[in-house]
C-alpha cells in the first residue's frame, strides 16, 4: 500500500526555521487581535447609533467581514487595493485582512454582550454623577469584556489559523509561508506540513490555556 518512503530527517532539520515562522504567526495574530478588539468596540457602539451615517458604514463592515471568506478579504487587501495604487506588503495585507475580519466578528460578540447588560446600570451610573463616557468605560466595558471573554478567545484561535492564508499573497516569513517555501524546494509535502500542523496545534493550545489562566485572574471565573 505504501510505496512512498518518508524522509523525516530532511524535515527535522528545518525545525528552527519553522519555529522562527511560528513567532511571526503569533505576532500577527496578537497584533490583529489587539487592533480587532479596538475596532470592534467602536463598531459595536456605532451599530447602536441612531445616526444613519454612523450606523451604515459600521453595518457594512460587519456584514462584509462576516459574509465573505477571510481568504477573499486578504486577497482583496493585497491585490484589490493594489489596483488603486495602495500597496500593502504581504505582512501588512495579511494583518489588515485578519484585523478587518476579527473586528467584524468581535463587533457582533460585543454587541450581544452589551445587550446582556441591563440598561438600568448605565442610568444608575449617570445618576451617581458619572459622565456618559466615564460610565461606559468604568461600568459597561468591564462587564462587556467579561461576558465576551470566551468568544474572544475563540476568535484569537481563529486569528492564528487565519494567518496561514498569507501564503496566497506572497507571505514567506510566517509558519505557513516558511512551510510552503521548504515544501516547494524539497517537495516533501507530507513530512513538512505534518510538522507545521503539530506546531500550529501547540500554539493554539498554548493560547487557549493562557487565556484561561488570564480569565481566572481577571474575572475570577
Amino acid at each position, binding site marked *: 500500500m505504501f510505496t512512498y518512503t518518508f524522509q523525516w530527517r530532511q524535515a527535522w532539520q528545518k525545525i528552527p526555521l519553522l519555529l522562527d515562522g511560528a513567532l511571526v504567526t503569533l505576532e500577527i495574530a496578537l497584533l490583529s487581535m489587539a487592533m480587532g478588539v479596538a475596532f470592534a468596540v467602536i463598531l459595536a457602539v456605532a451599530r447602536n447609533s441612531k445616526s444613519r451615517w454612523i450606523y451604515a458604514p459600521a453595518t457594512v463592515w460587519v456584514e462584509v467581514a462576516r459574509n465573505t471568506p477571510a481568504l*477573499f478579504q486578504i486577497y482583496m487587501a493585497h491585490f484589490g487595493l*493594489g489596483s488603486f495604487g495602495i500597496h500593502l506588503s504581504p505582512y501588512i495585507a495579511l494583518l489588515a485582512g485578519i484585523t478587518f475580519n476579527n473586528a467584524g466578528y468581535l463587533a457582533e460578540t460585543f454587541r450581544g454582550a452589551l445587550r446582556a447588560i441591563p440598561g438600568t446600570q448605565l442610568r444608575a451610573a449617570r445618576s451617581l454623577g458619572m459622565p456618559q463616557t466615564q460610565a461606559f468605560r468604568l461600568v459597561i466595558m468591564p462587564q462587556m469584556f467579561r461576558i465576551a471573554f470566551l468568544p474572544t478567545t475563540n476568535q484569537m484561535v481563529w486569528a492564528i489559523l487565519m494567518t496561514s492564508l498569507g501564503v496566497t499573497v506572497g507571505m514567506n516569513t510566517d509558519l505557513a509561508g516558511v512551510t510552503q517555501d521548504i515544501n516547494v524546494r524539497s517537495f516533501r509535502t507530507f513530512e513538512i506540513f505534518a510538522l507545521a500542523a503539530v506546531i*500550529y496545534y501547540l500554539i493554539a493550545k498554548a493560547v487557549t490555556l493562557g487565556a484561561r489562566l488570564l480569565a481566572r485572574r481577571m474575572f475570577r471565573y
Partner: protein
Amino acid sequence: MFETSMTLSDLMFLAKGAGMTIAVTFFAVTGGTVMGLLFGVIRAQISPWAALPLTFVLDVFRSVPLLIQLVLANAFQAIAGLNLPPFATSCIILALYTSAYCTEIVRGAIDAVPMVTRRAARSLGLSWGQDMTYVVFPMALRVALPSWIGLTLGVLKDSALVLWLGLIELLRSGQILVTRLQEPMFILLVVGLIYFLLSFPIARFGSQLEKRWREND
C-alpha cells in the same frame, strides 16, 4: 470601473465556480452534521475521560489551519495510494472539520436540556431512545439550530480554501478571470458580491429564527 470587458460567458464561468462552492459546502455540511450528531451524543452521554480520544481528535481539526489540513490530507491520500480525486479529499476534510464544530454544538445543546426534565421523562417509563427522540431532540434543536446555521455559513466561506487542491470554486474562477481580463478590483467585487448573496440571506434567516424563538421562551 463600470466599463468592463467581462462577458456573459465569463459570468457563467463564475456561476460554475459558485456551483462548485455550493457542492463542496453541501457534502461537507451533510457529512459533518451526521458525524457531529453521532459524536455529540457520544460526548454528552459518556464520561469525559472515556471520550478523551474522540475529544482530542476533534480538537485537532479545530486547532490546525484548514489549509494545512487540506494539503496534509491530499499528500496522505497519495502516499496511501487511495487515489482520491481532489473533490473527494476536499469534501472529506471539510466534513471532518465541520463535524468537529458540530459536535460541540450538539453536545452544548444536549447539556442545555435540564437533567430534571430527562429524569422525569425516564421515570415516566420512556426508554433512552424515546427520551432522546421525543424530549431531548426537540428542546436541543432550538438551542442548536442558530449555531448550526452559523457553522454552515462558516463552511461555505472556508470552502474557498479548496482552490489550493486545484478545484475551480468561486474565488479561483475569479482569479482565473483576473488573469485574463486584468480588472482585479471589479472581478473581485463581483466575486465578493456572489459570496454575500449566497451567505447573507441564510444569515438573516438564522438571526430571525433566533429572535422568534427567544420571544417564545
